[in-house]
């Protein structure tokens, strides 16, 4: 048997200022930079191309370098009335898109939180059944039920309205599902403590459940906003009035319309500028909510 003795380990003297190159780090950064380059290059190319005249673009395709047309193109994209009826500008489309993105994301969060609250916290007779019914809607995205949805919205007189644009998109289970899973992970005792503290169902929801869910809300908000923003098929179907066009569908419409007017050259520069503008809000939302999201994740515990 060996004796058990205390051993003192002398740690090596800290070597300051002799920063050695760590190859794994170099490797990581190479991959990151390459990836970033591949992602950003097309955007940069588009940005450079917007500085050219439409005639150049038609002749030579996408361009490198900078010409003097960028400001004009962005100005035209944002403020020049376009379309058959000249009823739509870039700002108008941006606003429509924002209404769709925010309306969809907020509506979705409110509805699905309330649904999940009912399913998890109230002893409803058919709660599980109701949940699975809601859940099966995951198998029926809007694209699958698009004709019946169109019929319904049309006959309700909601075509070419924001409600008609947003509400059918909200009807799906993703949010409910995430919130349900989250609520079920909240300890039962918290609910009971709140009951003893005299918090009724509404107070509990607002004072306890909503603040506890804020990271979840932020995450779902990001996903849903981007999803709503990028909608193409449904807006194309339900909005025929050009004043209701969203950015994502409007870009194509503009190019199409102009190319059909015969002798004139399609305004590619303007369309490209619009597509760049269309990318900005989702990026901003992600950046803004990401910091919030991380803060929530690290600070709160259940």
């Amino acid at each position: 048997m060996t004796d058990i003795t205390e051993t003192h380990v002398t740690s090596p003297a800290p070597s300051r200022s002799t920063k050695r190159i760590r190859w794994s780090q170099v490797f990581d950064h190479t991959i990151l930079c390459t990836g970033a380059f591949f992602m950003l290059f097309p955007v940069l190319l588009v940005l450079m191309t917007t500085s050219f005249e439409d005639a150049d673009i038609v002749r030579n395709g996408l361009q490198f370098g900078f010409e003097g047309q960028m400001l004009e193109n962005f100005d035209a994209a944002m403020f020049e009335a376009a379309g058959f009826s000249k009823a739509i500008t870039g700002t108008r489309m941006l606003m429509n898109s924002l209404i769709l993105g925010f309306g969809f994301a907020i509506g979705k969060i409110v509805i699905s939180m309330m649904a999940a609250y009912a399913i998890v916290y109230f002893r409803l007779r058919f709660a599980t059944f109701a949940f699975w019914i809601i859940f099966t809607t995951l198998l029926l995205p809007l694209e699958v039920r698009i004709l019946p949805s169109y019929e319904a919205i049309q006959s309700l007189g909601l075509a070419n309205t924001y409600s008609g644009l947003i509400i059918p998109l909200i009807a799906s289970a993703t949010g409910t599902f995430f919130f349900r899973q989250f609520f079920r992970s909240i300890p039962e005792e918290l609910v009971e403590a709140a009951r003893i503290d005299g918090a009724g169902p509404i107070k509990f929801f607002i004072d306890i459940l909503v603040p506890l869910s804020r990271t979840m809300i932020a995450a779902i908000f990001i996903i849903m906003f981007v999803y709503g923003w990028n909608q193409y098929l449904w807006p194309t179907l339900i909005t025929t009035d050009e004043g209701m066009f969203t950015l994502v569908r409007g870009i194509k419409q503009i190019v199409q319309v102009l190319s059909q007017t015969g002798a004139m050259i399609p305004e590619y520069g303007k369309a490209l500028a619009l597509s760049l503008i269309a990318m900005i809000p989702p990026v901003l939302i992600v950046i803004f909510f990401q910091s919030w999201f991380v803060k929530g994740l690290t600070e709160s515990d259940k």
Partner: protein
Amino acid sequence: MAQVTLDRVRKTYPNGFEAVQPCSVKIPDGELVVLVGPSGCGKSTLLRMIAGLEDITDGALSIGTDVVNDKDPADRNIAMVFQNYALYPHMSVAKNMGYGLKNRGASKAEIDAKVQEAARILNLGDYLDRRPSQLSGGQRQRVAMGRAIVRDPELFLFDEPLSNLDAKLRNQMRIEIRALQQRLGVTSVYVTHDQVEAMTMADRIIVLNAGRVEQIGTPTEIYEYPASTFVAGFMGAPPMNLLTAQIFEGALKLNEDTVLPITAPAGMGHKVLVGLRPEDVRLGGDGSVLFNVEIVEELGANRLLHGKLGGQDFSLSVGKDEAARTGVQPITLPVARVHFFDPDRGTRI
């Protein structure tokens, strides 16, 4: 403050499981009653019925003079401390403590005053702005206590409040809770599976076993006169020795060689359970009873000797100054402190 009366209170869960059999208890005003029993015996169920978190299947529960069976938890004027503290993670310590008052519509000044007062009592003054996640286990426990105190309840309910703390902190908090309860004089029901907590804190202990009340009594009564083998085995560490003895012409025989120098109780059949507390038995004697010691357990303040007496498991406890060794040695049984139990029903004779 109020007395609590349970009149044949019973609980059957919707799945048909009878968690608490009819139970009648009267808890006098200002007493701390400990509900003790092994895991799954229905302690929490009983406590939660008193709190109003669980419906009462049958029977009447009154707090003060009113029957409160159908009252909401918030209207019973109670406060509860949970095992996992159940603090609101997104609220500061002060908000946590004041939330109940706020819901009752108390003014901001009143809430502030009460929270300050509770924080002073519990030494939480420096932490009022922190979140629960920034506190240690003991501090969280204090906040949970504070949340109970500020409401000025008639009744405190505790559900294993110390189980999540380490042993040292547990001892400390045990004393603090007891001192606080005595100072405030609030009637309390305290659930635990730890018999030490039960013995040290209680004015009165209720021992539960499989949903049935085994015994109600003061810690001394429970310890000195356990009503059943279950209570005898559950209360006390190490537990009471229970020896199965044959009654043979008035003598108690463990086996052919070992006859206990104890008079058999009158009017029994031919078998009886003999209960002996390990600390009541002495080493040394005239050699009529021999104990075969197999293991010596060193506990610091005393030593436990485990082995066989007449072929049955037996333990005794000696002080730290007494020599202890393994091997066969004579012992002396405490003739005046023998407990007899019915071998079939386990009840005290």
